């Protein structure tokens, strides 16, 4: 029997654990105006997202559409300058087709900064009344999509926080949830052991190919997915970081390989391939942790487990982030930002299983509405940049 709570019912049948209004700027030139609109709603669930580029990008358009129709989102206000390339009509149709309230304000036609802010705030005020009427219905663990990421990693991440997150994934998958792990650039050297966990040999080949693509991509860039702080925290090579990160995936079979924006079709464990296809075009695959979090949210993640050793303080727009601190010294220094102290494992006070169960229980209470530390502090980080992807092949989501 899967544990039940209450979710916000959307027209596509998916259910949300939050009911946010998002204000989305469609080019950096509209960012300030959009942020001024959001600033009028301190303490209410109105969040800022956006895309900075003036030039068109199919990936960004798809991710934006998936975010604006995410089950945690109740209504959308697009803010356009007017001359950018982003296809605002297509984006607006995607949202209106889902039955959500949507409006698009074009600054060049709306009378400039002050008038657009005034009109935008009036629209959001009225949309808050609309989204409050959304039906709340029973929702089970088997309807949850949960992502995991590690950031600000150090040598403790792979010993305490990541194995505990993996344990939580095992528990949640056994209850029917869909869980996503990602960053193929941080799975370099894990491809063979990972391929053995695939539900079919063909999927195993896809997993191997995804990591090999990441290796080639990073080799061209000249760096691995490795930040200076990783070395200060005791990690020496990308392989070492990879092996520590890999254990976040737990022990379940791997059900599929998805790309940003692909929603898992059923419960199970999914690897997200975040490294672009084709030649190296737009620089680093993910320029910071929030880029990866956004991609998992675009694939339907209701919340994200974020394991950190050095100490990240970020949250996210749209979906709550649960921060799991792997390093006991960091936990003591940044306790106000951390939801779970996995450093207890290193200091011998609790087992990996104990902390894994705590994380699983916290997922349920956050799904029931409890605020995470980053939510309560007001963290709503967001970043979306340029990428290129080919669609996934038929072997990536085997029917078994």
């Amino acid at each position, binding site marked *: 029997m899967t544990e039940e709570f209450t979710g916000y019912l959307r027209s596509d049948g998916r259910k949300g654990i939050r009911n946010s209004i998002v204000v989305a700027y469609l080019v950096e030139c509209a960012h300030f105006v959009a942020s001024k609109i959001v600033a009028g709603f301190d303490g209410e669930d109105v969040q800022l997202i956006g895309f900075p580029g003036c030039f068109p990008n199919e990936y960004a358009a798809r991710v934006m559409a998936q975010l604006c129709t995410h089950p945690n989102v109740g209504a959308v206000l697009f803010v356009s300058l007017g001359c950018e390339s982003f296809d605002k009509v297509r984006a607006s149709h995607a949202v209106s087709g889902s039955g959500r309230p949507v409006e698009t304000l074009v600054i060049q036609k709306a009378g400039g900064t002050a008038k657009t802010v005034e009109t935008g705030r009036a629209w959001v005020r009225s949309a808050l009344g609309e989204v409050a009427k959304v039906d709340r219905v029973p929702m089970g663990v088997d309807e949850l999509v949960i992502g995991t990421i590690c950031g600000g990693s150090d040598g*403790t991440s792979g*010993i305490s926080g990541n194995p505990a997150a993996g344990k939580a994934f095992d528990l949640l998958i056994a209850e029917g949830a869909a869980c996503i792990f990602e960053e193929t650039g941080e799975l370099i*050297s894990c491809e063979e052991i990972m391929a053995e966990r695939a539900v079919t040999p063909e999927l195993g080949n896809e997993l191997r190919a995804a990591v090999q693509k990441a290796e080639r991509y990073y080799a061209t860039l000249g760096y*691995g997915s490795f930040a*200076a702080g990783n*070395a200060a925290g005791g990690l*020496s090579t990308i392989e070492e970081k990879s092996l520590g990160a890999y254990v976040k995936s737990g022990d379940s079979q791997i059900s599929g390989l998805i790309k940003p924006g692909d929603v898992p079709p059923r419960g199970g464990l999914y690897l997200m391939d975040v490294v672009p296809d084709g030649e190296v075009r737009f620089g680093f695959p993910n320029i910071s942790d929030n880029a990866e979090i956004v991609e998992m949210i675009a694939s339907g993640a209701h919340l994200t487990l974020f394991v950190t050793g050095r100490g990240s303080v970020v949250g996210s727009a749209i979906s709550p982030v649960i921060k799991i601190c792997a390093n006991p010294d960091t936990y003591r220094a940044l306790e106000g930002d951390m939801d779970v102290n996995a450093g207890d494992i290193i200091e011998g006070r609790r087992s990996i299983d104990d902390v894994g169960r705590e994380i699983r229980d916290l997922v349920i209470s956050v799904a029931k509405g409890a605020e995470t530390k980053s939510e309560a502090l007001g963290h709503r980080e967001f970043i979306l940049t340029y990428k290129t992807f080919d669609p996934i092949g038929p072997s990536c989501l085997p029917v078994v």
Partner: protein
Amino acid sequence: MTAPFLLLHPNDNVLVARTLAPEGTKVELASGAIKLAGAIPLAHKIACRDIAVGERILKYGMPIGIATEDIPAGSHVHIHNIRSAYTPTYALDDANGLSEGGTQ
């Protein structure tokens, strides 16, 4: 147990510090006791036996890199004496885990 160090897998040739281990800390290794030549920060590694140049470094029972010089048992194993078999490691001059950041 080689406290304050952890052996994560029986095949490993490195140990991981479970707390900051001060300079001079005595560590019992298979080849005998050693004293740390310098402080080893939390989650950094030392060699649990002599490692020859070119040998693979094993942690979690898996290769994490290749020794770029001979590493005597008890020495700090890090970016100064191992390298990735895949892509180079980027670090600032705080990579020893004991000093503040800055450009090398």
